[in-house]
């Protein structure tokens, strides 16, 4: 890497502080940039002057021996409003319950609970409130339990035209089950793995290719 002059250093130091996952010490920056700590401190000072001249949405805070960019305190109200609009994240139980209802509908609560092995009342309630699940009716068996199914909102959320567009588990398993080849397509190191295919895979592979070689993909 080329030596850096002070002017280049200013945005670079800003980038390091910006991307750090907490306050970052001048010492550590100096190390990463292979430069003197005084250079870093000079760049930080220049940054501060810059921020004072033309106010930004954030300011540079010296905190616990390091530096951190923080949004200006007067913006707190707006930022909190942003946080409130944070989209709802599916919890594991919610996703499981939704999956069972989607694929097994019409389904009763006890059927869901049988499959999940745990009480699912509160999750079901949340899904009903979020209008992803609805009551279809009552089942004509003793106790007349409620029967549940998914809603139009569910289809919209998953971008499905209708319920028949849900992929079946069997189709999915075909894709997921060839664990032997699992690592072949991906590697963290960038190196290629040797091409080791067992006999069965070869058989399968050729059968598959034969099937598909006939059809021509349509133009996009």
């Amino acid at each position, binding site marked *: 890497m080329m030596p850096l002059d002070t002017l280049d250093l200013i945005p670079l130091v800003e980038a390091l502080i910006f991307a750090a996952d907490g306050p970052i010490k001048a010492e550590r920056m100096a190390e990463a940039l292979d430069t003197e700590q005084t250079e870093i401190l000079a760049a930080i000072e220049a940054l501060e002057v810059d921020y004072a001249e033309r106010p930004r949405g954030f300011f540079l805070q010296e905190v616990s021996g390091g530096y951190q960019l923080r949004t200006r305190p007067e913006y707190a109200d707006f930022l909190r409003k942003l946080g409130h609009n944070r989209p709802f994240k599916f919890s594991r139980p919610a996703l499981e319950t939704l999956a069972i209802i989607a694929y097994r509908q019409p389904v009763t609560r006890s059927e869901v609970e049988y499959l999940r092995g745990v009480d699912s009342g509160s999750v079901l309630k949340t899904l009903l409130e979020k209008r992803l699940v609805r009551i279809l009716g009552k089942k004509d068996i003793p106790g007349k339990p409620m029967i549940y199914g998914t809603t139009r909102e569910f289809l919209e959320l998953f971008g499905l035209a209708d319920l028949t567009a849900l992929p079946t588990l069997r189709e999915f398993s075909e894709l997921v089950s060839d664990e032997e080849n699992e690592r072949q397509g991906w590697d963290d190191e960038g190196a290629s793995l040797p*091409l080791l295919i067992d006999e069965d895979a070869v058989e399968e592979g050729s059968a598959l290719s034969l099937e598909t070689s006939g059809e021509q993909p349509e133009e996009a």
Partner: protein
Amino acid sequence: MDSYSIQLENFEGPLDLLLHLIKKNEMDIYDIPMAAITEQYLAILDTMKTLNLDLAGEFLLMAATLLHIKSKQLLPKIVEEDLEEEEDDPRAELVRRLLEYQKYKEVSLTLDHKPQLGRDVFARVAPQPEVLEEAEAGFVAVGLFDLLEALREVLKENPEQLVHEVNMEQLSVTDRINAILSALQGKESVAFVDLFSDGLKRNEVIVTFLALLELVKLHLVRFMQNVHHGTIWLFPAVVIDENEELDVGDDALGYS
């Protein structure tokens, strides 16, 4: 042995290998000398075999395709009409595939060259918000993959449940039930004949009918008719007003 295996892996597949051979020999893509290229291609596969390397089926299949094209070329042309010579050329599809493959191979490299988040450019790691109140906005988009994974995980715990469920007919009736429920959703009613309108095959008609019977049995739909021999209408048995707050007390959850 390692070095050879990496060698072959260097080619994504038979198309990649062929592309390389054609380029290396400066062959005309529109007039590939089949004999020469087949020979070279097979020589490489032979080398791999003598090294006891397993070959992916696709490489073998391509060998068969090459031989097939070669033999087709050797056959005398039956008709002398020179129109559509291109389409007659047994190499046409292969050429098309090679050019198409090259297009995606190239663009995938261009794509990789773009600044990637986490590799070349970095975003700020937003600290976790301190307040986590009940969100009022919509859901984070979840993919179908997540939904299927969740189901798969659940069913892994209870595999026996699956046994009698995996039944071709049962599956299609269930599909049909779902389709009918979808069709009914948000509507007051659906005409009976509409369920059979889109050119259904005989077995599909039966499955649809079975689905309807099942729905009636479950008290999920009702049939109504204004006039004798008039249109039969299908109504959802339970209509939930979209604007009305749902009563999700204990009894709504099926336990009273």
